[in-house]
């Protein structure tokens, strides 16, 4: 199937590009530091949070998360437009949808790889301290599933941005702004002093911070699941249409 041929190339393209290794390196540094900071905080005295919760709810975590998404997705389409490889790609008998899914799939794969080492941190932690890292598998699974869900959504935003322009920097800025905007909309509760109950309800519905907070405490909620999956689908659909219509504008 063409899709797998395309997907394989997308994945290989990440691991053959120096940018990806630089991203991976600094990302590891960041998550490593974040983990260390979490453990150090717990070391200072008794606390009611687990190490999982401490890891997934810090400013370092979110900063790294939001920053890395545009770096992963900016090259997807823009690079092909800019280099001109889009011409040979699209004159091969491939389906547009396969191209979009393969590119998205490649980005998602790289995103997952970025987080794999953090699993190691928790394993080492529980080995060394003889404590179960999270106290239970619920928060652990919850946090990682939420990570994947939010990541899927943000990556689809990046995908759309990249399909819109031949300039990688512009693609990165567009997706970064969009993701930051969405993220901070979820923080409205902190900015508005006399917030009404309904507004608080609403913001909590799309607050990534709250979703992650709950998930890393092991609370399962189906609303974020539906929320992120449907938004991902919408953004991929938009990407597909933008990608197709670019040909008409040529």
């Amino acid at each position, binding site marked *: 199937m*063409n899709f797998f*041929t*395309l997907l394989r*190339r997308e994945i*290989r*393209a990440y691991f*053959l*590009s120096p940018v990806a290794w630089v991203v991976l390196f600094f990302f590891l540094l960041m998550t490593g530091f974040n983990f260390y900071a979490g453990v150090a905080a717990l070391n200072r005295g008794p606390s009611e949070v687990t190490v999982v919760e401490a890891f997934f709810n810090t400013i370092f975590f979110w900063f790294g998360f939001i920053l890395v998404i545009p770096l992963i997705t900016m090259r997807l389409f823009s690079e092909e437009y800019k*280099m*001109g*490889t889009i*011409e*040979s790609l*699209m*004159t*091969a*008998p*491939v*389906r547009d949808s396969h191209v979009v899914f393969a590119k998205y799939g490649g980005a998602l794969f790289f995103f997952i790889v970025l987080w794999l080492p953090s699993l190691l941190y928790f394993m080492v932690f529980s080995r060394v301290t003889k404590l179960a890292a999270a106290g239970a598998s619920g928060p652990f699974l919850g946090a990682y599933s939420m990570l994947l869900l939010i990541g899927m959504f943000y990556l689809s935003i990046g995908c759309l941005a990249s399909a819109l322009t031949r300039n990688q920097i512009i693609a990165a800025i567009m997706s970064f702004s969009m993701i930051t905007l969405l993220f901070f909309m979820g923080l409205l509760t902190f900015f508005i002093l006399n917030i009404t109950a309904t507004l608080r309800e609403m913001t909590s519905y799309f607050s990534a911070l709250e979703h992650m907070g709950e998930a890393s405490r092991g609370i399962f909620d189906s609303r974020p699941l539906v929320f992120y999956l449907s938004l991902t689908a919408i953004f991929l659909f938009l990407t597909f249409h933008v990608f197709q219509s670019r*040909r*008409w504008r*040529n």
Partner: protein
Amino acid sequence: MNFARRFLAIQGESRHKLRFLERVNKRTRNLLMIKVAGLTKTYAGVSAIQGLDFTVTKGEIVGFLGPNGAGKSTTMRILSCFMPATSGTASVAGFDVATQSREVRSRVGYMPENVALYPEMRVQEYLEYRAALKGVRGRRNRQRVNAVKELCSLRDVETKLIGALSKGYRQRVGIADALVNDPDLLILDEPTIGLDPNQIRQVRQLIRDLGKRHTILLSTHILSEVEMICSRVLIINRGRIAASDTAENLVGRVRTAGGVTAEIRAEADELQGALVALTGVRRADVVPMDDGWMECTLRTDAEHDPREEVARLAAARGWPLRALGREQVSLERVFAAITQAEEM
């Protein structure tokens, strides 16, 4: 066809006849590799091609010529389904480029004007990838990749990173890519640009060999190349087809209206007057040469060849004559005549 079927039904004709008609229809369709009708492309208000009409039959090697910006690449990009036309239709092997694009793409090997490749891939890997993308898988993938590597002399660089290849080698990878699925139709946009003389010769030979089994549409600015390898020339100028014929016929067309040159020693004005008086001569230019001889250029009507009369004239007047010949007309002249006449 529908009409024919209904017509036959009304006539009460046998099924047999109907099938015969269908077969004829299919055969004529199969003979046509490219059919372009009223093709127009407008880029953001700028018109690139305007109402192009032409056909290419199976087995032809067609040279697509035209000045810069004439619309060659635009036409080729539409035929290879990279972009849609603004209006008009084009079909390849009977499939419409707009509505049956994947059928078309799987039958066309397209080499773009700017061969863009993934710099991080190795040559071998890239060709395998491209072959797989075009549906060539498994053992055949390996076979085809080996075959095109051989054809395009890429053996020595198969393990090199594409980013580290020289321009000519990248061009060869582009040609290899176009060939890798053994397509019915090859569309090559300036395939020999950037190649060294040996490679150019090799690629021309390659194209000629490929032309035995494939249909080829290639654009180029090297006219001698066209004369050597193309069975037909298609000249496009300012988005319109300006000529379509074999190279010889085109050259012939200009030659008949062409000229005769002579070198005679005589007094310029007298010579000029005598030459113009010859039958069929429309214009005579007499230019003094460095050594006192006159270089004469005659423009004649198509049906007259005044060489004999010129010789007799010189003999009668006692003028020494040291050269007399017909102007050698190259495709270059034809090209200039066709594409510049329209600009004026």
